[in-house]
C-alpha cells in the first residue's frame, strides 16, 4: 500500500510458546492519530517493542516510510533516527539531569560520540528547547532537576523530549496513567496538536481519554486486530464488548 507511513504485515511473535502477537497487520498513515486498546496481554506493548526494534518478530514484516525500509534488521537507535519516537508507560526521563539537558539530549542533532563531545549549545537549539518547554508547560523549570518534577510534569517532559526528537511517528504508551483531571486534558490537547504534523499512536486503557482524543481506534485481542473504527463503532462491536468492555 502506498502513502502509508508504517505498514505492519502479518507479524507473529511468541515467547516460550505464548503467542504475544498473532499474524497482526495494520497500517498507519502520515499525520494520523490512532488509539490502540485491548485487555492486558493483548500484545499492545509487544507491538511497540517490535516496531521500535526491541523485539524481533518470528514472522512478518514492518515497512517504514516512502522508501519502504524494512525495520526488522535495524537496531533501536537506527529506528529512532529514522523517525520513530517512543514514550514509555512509566515516565522515563533522566532524573539526575536538568530539564534543559533532557531536552537538549533529545534534540534532532547528530548522534555520533564525537559530534556530541564537541557539541556547543547554540542560539537556534536553545530557542527550540525553550519553545518546547513552553509547549509542555515547563518553561519555568528548565534548570530544575528532572527528578524533582511532579509525576505529570515528568510525563510532559518525556513528551517534550519526543517533540525535540521530531519523529514522524510517535508511539505513546499509556500517557494518562497516574495523571490528574486537568493534566489529562492538557495531554489530550498536546497529543492532538502533535498529530497535526506527524503520526501518533496512543496505547491507552482509559476509554474516556480515548473518546476525548476523537480518533480511529484499533482494538487488539490475543495478538491480532479485533475491531477497528471510531470509538462509537468499536464500543458497539459485540466481540469487543465480550472480550474487553464487558468485564
Amino acid at each position: 500500500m502506498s502513502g502509508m507511513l508504517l505498514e505492519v504485515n502479518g507479524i507473529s511473535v511468541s515467547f516460550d510458546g505464548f503467542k504475544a502477537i498473532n499474524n497482526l497487520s495494520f497500517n498507519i498513515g502520515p499525520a494520523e492519530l490512532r488509539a490502540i486498546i485491548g485487555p492486558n496481554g493483548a500484545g499492545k506493548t509487544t507491538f511497540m517493542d517490535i516496531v521500535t526494534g526491541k523485539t524481533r518478530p518470528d514472522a512478518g514484516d514492518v515497512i517504514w516510510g516512502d522508501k519502504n525500509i524494512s525495520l526488522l534488521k535495524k537496531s533501536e537507535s537506527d529506528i529512532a533516527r529514522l523517525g520513530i519516537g517512543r514514550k514509555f508507560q512509566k515516565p522515563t526521563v533522566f532524573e539526575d539531569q536538568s530539564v534543559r539537558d533532557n531536552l537538549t539530549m533529545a534534540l534532532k542533532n547528530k548522534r555520533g560520540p564525537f559530534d556530541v563531545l564537541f557539541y556547543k549549545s547554540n542560539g537556534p537549539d536553545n530557542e527550540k528547547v525553550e519553545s518546547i518547554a513552553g509547549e509542555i508547560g515547563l518553561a519555568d523549570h528548565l534548570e530544575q532537576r528532572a527528578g524533582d518534577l511532579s509525576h505529570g510534569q515528568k510525563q510532559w517532559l518525556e513528551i517534550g523530549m519526543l517533540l525535540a526528537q521530531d519523529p514522524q511517528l510517535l508511539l505513546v504508551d499509556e500517557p494518562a496513567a497516574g495523571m490528574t483531571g486537568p493534566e489529562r486534558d492538557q495531554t489530550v490537547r498536546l497529543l492532538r496538536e502533535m498529530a497535526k504534523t506527524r503520526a501518533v499512536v496512543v496505547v491507552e486503557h482509559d476509554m474516556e481519554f480515548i473518546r476525548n482524543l476523537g480518533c480511529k481506534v484499533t482494538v487488539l485481542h490475543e495478538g491480532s486486530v479485533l475491531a477497528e473504527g471510531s470509538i462509537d463503532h468499536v464500543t458497539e462491536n459485540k466481540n469487543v464488548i465480550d472480550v474487553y468492555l464487558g468485564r
Partner: protein
Amino acid sequence: MNGPLVKFLLRNPSVMVFMGILALFVVVVTIASEASGYGLISTSFVKTLGKTLCFCLVAIAMDLVWGYCGILSLGHFAFFGLGGYMIGMWLMYARTEIIVERAAAGAELPPTAQEISDAIGNQIFGVVGGSDFPAIWAFADLFWAQAALIVLVPGLLALVFGWLAFRSRVTGVYLSILTQAMTLALALYLFQNDSGLRGNNGLSGLQNLPGLEKVSQDSISLWFFWASAGALALGYLIVKLIVESKLGNVIRGIRDDESRVRFLGYNVEAYKLFVFVLTAIIAAIAGALYYPQAGIINPAELAPIASIYLAVWVAIGGRGRIYGAVIGAAFVSLLSSWFTGGQAPNIPLGFYTVKWVDWWLILLGLSFVFVTLYAPQGMGALIDKLSRKGRAS
C-alpha cells in the same frame, strides 16, 4: 585562543580549586624533598607520593567508566599494567644496551651488532633461560615507538574486548565478571616464561633512566613526581571537559537508563566503547608513569584483586564526582601502605594482638560494605555538603 577553556574554568571553579591544591602540593613536596636540600621528605616517600598521583589518575578513569557511564569494569588495572610493561620494555632494553656497549668498549675486537644484540638478549632473558628477542620487543630500542605502544596496546585490547562485550549487550555484573576474566587471563599469560616478558620475574630496574646514571634518584624521583602531577592535572581537566559536555549527559543517561538513550537514537554501544577505550588509555598512561617509580613490574600487578581495589577507591571516594575518585585513591592507597608497611602500631588486646598487616584488608572490606550500604556518595559527599554550606552562608 584560550577563550573557551577560560570560560569553561570560570563555569567550573572546582577545577581551579583542584589545580590550585595540586600545585600547592607539588611545590611543598618539591621544597621538602631531598633534592632541594631540606630533606624533610625522603626520596622513597616522594616516590610513594608520585605513585599515589598515578593511582589518582587511574581512579579518575575508573570514575568516568563506572561513576559516569555505569560500566563496572573490574579490569582496568590490566590496562594500567600493560602501560607499565610497554614503558618498562624500553627502559630495560635501553639501559641494558648501554651496559653491554660499555662492557664491549674495552674489547680489542669491536663486537658486531649481532653480538651486541645477543648480549643484550642474554642479559634480559637469561633469567627465563632464553636469549632471543621475542617479536614483541621489535620496537624496544625506540623510545617514541614504545611510548606510542603505551597508548596503542591497551587501547587496542580495550577496543576489541569492549566491541565484543558491548555488541553482545553484556551488562552489569556479567560485564564485571568478564573484565575480571580478562585481567586474570592476561596475568596468567604473562606469568609464563615464554610470554616474552620474563614471566614472573617481570621487568625490573625501571627506576634507572638510561643514560642518566649520574643523576641521583633524589632528582629522578622528583621528575616523575612532577610528571605524575602534570598527567593527573591534564587527566582531570580532560575528564571534566568530557563529563560537562553533552557527551557527559549522554553517558550519564546510559548509566541511568540505557534503553531510553537507545530510543532517543543514540548508539549506546559506540558510546560505551568510546568511554571504555579512552579510560583504558588514561589507565595505561598512569601505569607508564607509575612503574618507573615502583622500579619493577611483574604479572602479579595485573591480578584481579588490583582492579577490585580500584573500584573500592572510587566507591569510598564517591562515584560520579571526579575529585571523589582522587580523594578515594589518595586516602585509601596511602592508608593501605601505612597499614601494610608495618608502620601502624599493633594493638595488644591481652588475649590477642591486632596486627594491621593482617587486619587492614578486613577493615578495608568492611568500610567498602559500609560505604556501599550507608554512604553511596562516599567521602565526596562531605565535600559537596561543605561547599554547599559555604555557598549558602
